[in-house]
């Protein structure tokens, strides 16, 4: 770990600065200091490199989990190939990814009323292979979006994947819905 002599600018301020959410006067004060302090300039540059790398990292489509339409829209604008499946409660959906797909997005519909957060579990042959807990946000409109790396899906054998959503609200658990993905393997486009 590197220790800098001057740490006048807190990481929280750099974060807000990078997000464009600092008041003008505060941003100007940071700029004045960064242009005169090599230690803080180095920290700021290091942090800036981190922020700048986030889009490239997300575009690599190796980041799954609960996302929102805002993230999906940006992925689409960036040309990431997303295979989307819309699943109603109890649905059994043939599911496959093409060899050039980069991300699989599951739009999982259900009754999320009063749910603060949800847990998504994926099981293969009755054995749970993953479990993720995320927020149910205001813009959910009766569905959550869960992203999975298409590369990971391609590695699966031909198998049924059971997806189960459970809601959590003030310590109470409630099953929202189950869905079945009938995974048919990876599809190749004919040239």
């Amino acid at each position: 770990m590197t220790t800098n002599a001057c740490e006048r600018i807190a990481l929280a301020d750099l974060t807000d600065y990078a997000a464009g959410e600092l008041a003008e006067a505060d941003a100007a004060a940071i700029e004045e200091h960064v242009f005169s302090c090599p230690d803080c300039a180095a920290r700021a540059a290091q942090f800036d490199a981190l922020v700048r790398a986030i889009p490239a990292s997300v575009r690599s489509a190796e980041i799954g989990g609960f996302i929102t339409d805002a993230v999906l829209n940006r992925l689409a604008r960036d040309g990431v190939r997303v295979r989307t499946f819309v699943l109603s409660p109890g649905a059994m959906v043939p599911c496959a990814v093409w060899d050039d797909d980069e991300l699989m997005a599951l739009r999982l519909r259900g009754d999320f009323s009063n749910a603060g957060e949800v847990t998504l579990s994926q099981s293969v042959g009755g054995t749970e292979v993953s479990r993720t807990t995320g927020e149910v946000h205001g813009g959910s409109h009766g569905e959550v979006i869960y992203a999975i790396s298409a590369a990971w899906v391609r590695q699966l054998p031909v198998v049924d994947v059971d997806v189960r959503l459970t809601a959590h609200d003030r310590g109470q658990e409630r099953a929202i819905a189950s869905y079945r993905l009938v995974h048919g393997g990876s599809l190749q486009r004919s040239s």
Partner: protein
Amino acid sequence: MPDAHATLADASDETLALRIAGSVAGSTDDEEAELYRRFAPRVRLYGRRHLRNDAAADDLAQDVLLLTIGRLRAGEVRKPEEIGSFILGTSRMMAHSERRVTRRREALAARFMQTTEDTAPSSLSSLDVPRLAACLRALAERDRLVVLLTFYAEREAPRIAEDLGVSSGAVRAIRHRAMTRLRDCVLGEPSPANRQDPQP
């Protein structure tokens, strides 16, 4: 007082500027390269915030420092000992001008052609993107979503707060915590679990 004999790495910004000031072209190449190395990241940081575009920020860093070095050589920087202030002032001036040009260009583009998003910035080669992806995956779901919404989907805190059903202050607190963990993970610094971060 600047040390005329300091090595490049040890020389202060002021010393570098004074050496370049009034020099003959080609005689202070090393000092100019060092000045560029030190200040380009700062101008880029400034440019990213004010131009909201990585490629434009890279261009700004080049333009500002070329102009600065030219002015120094020509003896046109009144106080070389305050070179940081000069570069910041030049950055402000050129970014302002760039914003005007960009607005004009965007207005024309909207009328006559479709524009495309800028590509990944050139200066990321040193950051390990797969490692960053792994660190993003390691964040808690909510933390990761806030980072993605802020720095990828470019949503502001009040909008994220509305979507997540929390306050703007909570979004900022989550973001601070997430970025601290992300930075520590990428740099291989202390485990997030061992840090005493404020909870939103």
